[in-house]
């Protein structure tokens, strides 16, 4: 297969990449989702800006209370990182489910989050952990945005900031086959704040595969918190999920229709909550 025609640029700095951006230009990092879109001609940019050789974007760094990952940190690099295993166990657990080892060697964490595909694992984790994008705009400003929200035009994500995980977390997913894109995935995390007595309020739930992008589920989180330390009831989870969805459009495709996704989601959440309670992540 051959993509539609485009021009190609390989800038060596973030500033140079930003200077090239225009509404019909696309940034290319790992390309494990974007190149399939190019060859299927689902994406037809006039210009592809390859950021792979921009130095300084491939580090995972521990800052006070935060883990900062550059836009070129590969999925497998993050999965194998001791820092991620110790400080972001939910992310480490979720990365096991992303693609396969060869795809993970090339695909990037930021790219996975930016694509925000339905059923993708990392947007759910970003919601549960409250990850933020560090965004550079063309006029040289740097802003932050929740990592599951759409990007402002003419900007580039240079890093993702993960708040250090302070409590247990859990992740679960249902997919058609191992290594295939998830149907529904759920990430649950519990932030322990020793200065507060009621830790139950700190539970956060991110869900992927129900709406087109990652969904924050406050009502579901309250159900899990209220049931602690027991497992939440499936019926209560399903009702809370309905409340969290509100009037957002639901997502379905040939892989799994909306009806199945809604049916399986409470069980996926329950299992993620169970892993959290068992302290596995």
């Amino acid at each position, binding site marked *: 297969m051959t993509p539609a025609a485009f021009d190609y640029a390989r800038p060596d700095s973030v500033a140079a990449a930003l200077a090239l951006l225009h509404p019909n230009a696309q940034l290319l990092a790992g390309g494990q989702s974007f190149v*399939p879109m190019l060859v*299927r001609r689902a994406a037809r940019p*006039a210009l592809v800006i*390859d950021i792979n050789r921009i130095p300084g974007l491939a580090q995972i760094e521990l800052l006070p209370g935060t883990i900062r990952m550059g836009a070129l940190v590969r999925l497998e690099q993050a999965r194998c990182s001791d820092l991620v295993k110790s400080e972001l166990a939910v992310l480490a657990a979720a990365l096991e489910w992303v693609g396969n080892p060869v795809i993970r060697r090339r695909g990037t964490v930021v790219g996975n989050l930016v694509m925000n595909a339905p059923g993708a694992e990392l947007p759910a984790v970003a919601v549960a952990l409250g990850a933020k994008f560090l965004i550079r705009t063309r006029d040289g400003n740097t802003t932050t945005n929740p990592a599951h929200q759409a990007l402002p035009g003419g900007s580039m994500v240079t890093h993702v900031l993960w708040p250090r995980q302070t409590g247990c977390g859990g992740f679960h997913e249902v997919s058609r086959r191992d*290594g295939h894109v998830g149907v529904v995935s759920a990430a649950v995390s519990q932030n322990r704040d020793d200065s507060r007595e009621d830790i139950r309020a700190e539970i956060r739930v991110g869900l992927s595969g129900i709406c087109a992008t990652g969904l924050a589920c406050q009502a579901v989180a309250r159900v899990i918190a209220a049931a602690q330390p027991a497992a939440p009831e499936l019926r209560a989870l399903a009702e809370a999920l309905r409340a969290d969805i509100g009037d957002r459009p639901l997502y379905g495709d040939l892989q799994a229709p909306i009806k199945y996704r809604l049916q399986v989601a409470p069980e996926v959440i329950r299992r993620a909550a169970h892993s959290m309670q068992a302290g596995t992540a």
Partner: protein
Amino acid sequence: MAPACTEPLIDVAMTVDGARIAGRVRPRYLLSDFLREAAGAASVHIGCGQGLCGACTVAVDGVPVRACLMLAAQADECRVQTVASLNVLEGYNGAGLTPLQNSFREHHALQCGFCTPGLLVSTAIFLAENPRPARRAILQHLNGHLCRCTGYANIIAAIEAVAP
């Protein structure tokens, strides 16, 4: 206003299995096509063309990648190794088939052979990085490769035999 696309040709040069290959390519020219057409590496099999099957897997600077998910322009000045470099990837200096190839033959781990070159490249790298893999790790490794002939059991046996 977005500038129109002019698609100028790009000069690329890379090492493919030890030989320097240079060419002028369109930006949209995929690495898999470059390897087959410009470098004559017919072992780079194009299966699905969208990163699902793993047949086109090659090593770029020592890292296994899907050649169909990389632009030829992206591999500029890189070292590309196909299955023709399997002895290098396995660190095997002898003659004839490499230990991994031999094991595939002995265990009937291939039939039509379409998935085999990509599978051998990524398995050689996998074993170099995990000399004693658990069975679960082998299964996870095989996630990235579709084989429609063997049912995988013989491939697993072949890999386990070279990594006891």
